[in-house]
């Protein structure tokens, strides 16, 4: 590689944000160097690729060592290569707390395995503070972001239906998945208790899109798709960037800090080459950090200099603050006696979501419930890869075996997706002593669920029980919330806003302090909502990237270092 070259833009990360930035910038004629902390994946070798349980040593239950390492995290399992998810780089949780942080540092990041739920956010989210008085509004409105949502949906393919709910703006959709027996029964129960039960917005190709083939419904999406029938950056965005000849990808390049020039503007990135353990510096006219919410804050907090003594772009003091996350948990489960003894049905064709119950709380007025804002839930169940009921059925022998088969089509349950609200208690900082194996001071995550989220959790358990009973199910109980970090939906460490004293970036993801530094991931989101983050990351990044292109065309970053406008 040419160490003296100055690129137009360095992009840290190749996930949803990084991939979209790379795609948009290279298409516009800019030279991009991408730094990715892990290696490239080969779907034929690294993904599950239709392996059966009996094709792997531990039958999908994983070795005891791996279970301890992954805490049983369901995407990181023995069907895929063991280094696909990050296990080497240590991080810390605050004393007495536990943040479980699944990180995919392979090229494409979590888009290789994501759950694909892709709802648009709406003004009920962007203008939430105006409605209920809590926290602050986003600096953008739905009308501004809607065209970018439309372009992203056409690019990646999202299956759903038009639902005409103001809280869930409709988009440009492929045909929805067909409902299963469990959906029809749960929907009937939901209708009885006043909960909307609708097709999810699922970024999975029910029809081919461009060169991307339609889904074949094998149901192992979260262990990687062998044909690329759902959006991931290695299948959808990086190939186009490569064709431009303006894209250089450096793998195993672990960003340590963003470098600044004598004016305090970004001039490049120092990274550790994980294969040689040597530090390398690379230079550019502008830098995009898209390392994912917590990692982006980590890199910027570690980027201290004379101009930026508390971390880069941190004059507001808000860098690393305002961390939010989705609480996930089993809000209730049971089984549907109507389906006892039925032939098996392919219920698990999307490995995730076919339907969801989008937020229905606090829609008519913002204080109808004992909590503000709202949560959503995802149903699951039916004929999975492993039968259910075997723990509940008493005994053994021929009758036991027959009962397992009889119960096989019947299990159902709901996963809650409840957003935390901004709290001073939840933030990322740098551990004062601990370093990772490359000598980089570790990120330390401070996080506990706020009372509002816990109130949603209680509400979801009560609702789910009522819903399941109304659907005719035998209700069997609920689980406990997963560890914070489990959902992969963390937001808010570098929030965007118009006031440079209160926010890290402006409404374009451009940092207030450093005009040639842009953030393109969920770190700029104001908060979690009842929706997932990826579609909004893609839409905001498309917008930010086009803004960057305009800045280049305007000559602002045309010489070495940035010249602030």
């Amino acid at each position, binding site marked *: 590689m040419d160490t003296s070259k100055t690129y137009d833009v360095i992009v840290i990360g190749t996930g949803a944000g990084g991939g979209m930035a790379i795609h948009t910038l290279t298409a516009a004629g800019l030279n991009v160097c991408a730094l990715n902390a892990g290696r490239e994946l080969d779907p034929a070798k690294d993904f599950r690729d239709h392996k059966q349980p009996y094709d792997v040593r531990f039958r999908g239950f994983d070795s005891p060592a791996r279970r301890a390492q992954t805490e049983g995290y369901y995407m990181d399992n023995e069907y895929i290569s063991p280094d696909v998810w990050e296990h080497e780089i240590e991080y810390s949780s605050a004393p007495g707390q536990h943040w479980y942080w699944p990180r995919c540092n392979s090229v494409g990041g979590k888009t290789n395995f994501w759950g694909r739920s892709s709802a648009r956010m709406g003004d009920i989210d962007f203008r939430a503070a105006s409605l209920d008085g809590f926290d602050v509004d986003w600096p953008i409105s739905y009308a501004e972001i809607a065209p970018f949502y439309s372009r992203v949906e056409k690019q990646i393919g999202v299956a759903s239906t038009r639902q005409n709910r103001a809280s869930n703006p409709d988009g440009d959709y492929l045909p929805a998945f067909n409902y299963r027996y469990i959906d029809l029964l749960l929907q009937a129960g939901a209708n009885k208790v006043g909960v909307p039960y609708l097709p999810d917005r699922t970024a999975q190709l029910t029809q081919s899109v461009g060169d991307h083939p339609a889904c074949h419904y094998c149901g192992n999406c979260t262990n990687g798709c062998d044909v690329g029938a759902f959006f991931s950056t290695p299948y959808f965005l990086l190939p186009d960037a490569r064709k431009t000849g303006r894209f250089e990808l450096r793998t195993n390049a672990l960003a340590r800090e963003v470098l600044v020039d004598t004016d305090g503007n970004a001039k490049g990135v120092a990274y550790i080459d994980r294969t040689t353990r040597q530090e390398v510096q690379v230079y550019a006219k502008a830098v995009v950090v898209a390392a994912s919410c917590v990692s982006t804050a980590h890199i910027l907090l570690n980027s201290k200099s004379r101009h930026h003594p508390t971390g880069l772009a941190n004059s507001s003091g808000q860098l690393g603050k305002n961390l939010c996350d989705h609480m996930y948990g089993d809000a209730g489960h049971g089984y549907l006696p109507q389906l006892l003894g039925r032939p098996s049905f392919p219920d698990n064709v999307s490995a995730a979501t076919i339907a969801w119950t989008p937020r229905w709380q606090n829609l008519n007025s913002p204080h109808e419930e004992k909590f503000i804002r709202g949560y959503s839930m995802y149903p699951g169940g039916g004929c999975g890869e492993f039968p259910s009921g075997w723990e509940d059925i008493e005994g053994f022998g021929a009758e036991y075996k027959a009962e397992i088969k009889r119960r096989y089509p019947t299990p159902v349950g709901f*996963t809650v997706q409840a957003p935390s609200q901004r709290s001073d208690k939840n933030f990322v900082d740098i551990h004062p002593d601990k370093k990772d194996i490359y000598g980089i001071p570790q990120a330390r995550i401070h996080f506990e669920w706020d009372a509002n989220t816990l109130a949603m959790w209680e509400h979801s358990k009560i609702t789910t029980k009522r819903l399941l009973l109304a659907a005719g199910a035998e209700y069997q109980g609920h689980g406990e919330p997963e560890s914070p970090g489990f959902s992969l939906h963390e937001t808010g460490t570098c929030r965007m806003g118009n006031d440079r004293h209160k926010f890290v970036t402006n409404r374009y993801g451009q940092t207030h302090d450093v005009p040639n530094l842009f953030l393109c991931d969920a770190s700029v989101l104001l908060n979690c909502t009842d929706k997932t983050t990826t579609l909004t990351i893609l839409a905001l990044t498309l917008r930010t990237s086009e803004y960057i292109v305009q800045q280049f065309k305007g000559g602002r970053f045309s010489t070495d270092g940035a010249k602030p406008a």
Partner: protein
Amino acid sequence: MAGQHPTRRQVLEALSAAAIAATAQGFCRWNWAFAQGPPRHTHIAPSAPHRAATYHPVFFTPPQYSAVVALAELILPATAQHRPAVHRVSNPANAGATDAGVAEFIDFMVSQDASLQPRFRTGLQWMDESAGTKDFLTLSSPEQTALLQRIAYKKNFQPNEKPGQDFFVLMRKYTVMGFYTSRIGLESIDYPGLRFYAESPSVPQDAFLHSLGV
């Protein structure tokens, strides 16, 4: 991410509770089911035979292993046994733990997990000690069943037989895990995943659907 099948989560949670770091074997792909070229995944691909002609246990002693074989078969027995084995397994719903190689799976899993080893050892010892003047293996088949019933059904529970009751839960869990992750076990429930569907599967408009009233 969103959603996940509750069942596998439950299994993993149950396992995680007992998991401690043991000998790491790393990743081994010993059986590529889809090595053949296109068209791909149009059916459940055949796998290699699930057991060698003669199996030599790696953790259990030969008598312990024989007891595991017997217990697994009692828990998930082959049914329609009057028919020759070759016909019996032609209908996977009739397959039993022995057909699925469950004891070999348990031997492997226990050999890899130090936390499981004392639990299986003492559990099997309990079975022998509770078999009266004999050991478990030399009991007649009805006697074996009767002993298992004492620790499998709440109505039969004796306060001093808690170790046996706990062992039954453990033994049954690993039997279920081994059976329903074997090829024939998955076929026995007609696992419908990992197949090729040309379109999003839909429920037939038939009398059953009508009967659901949805």
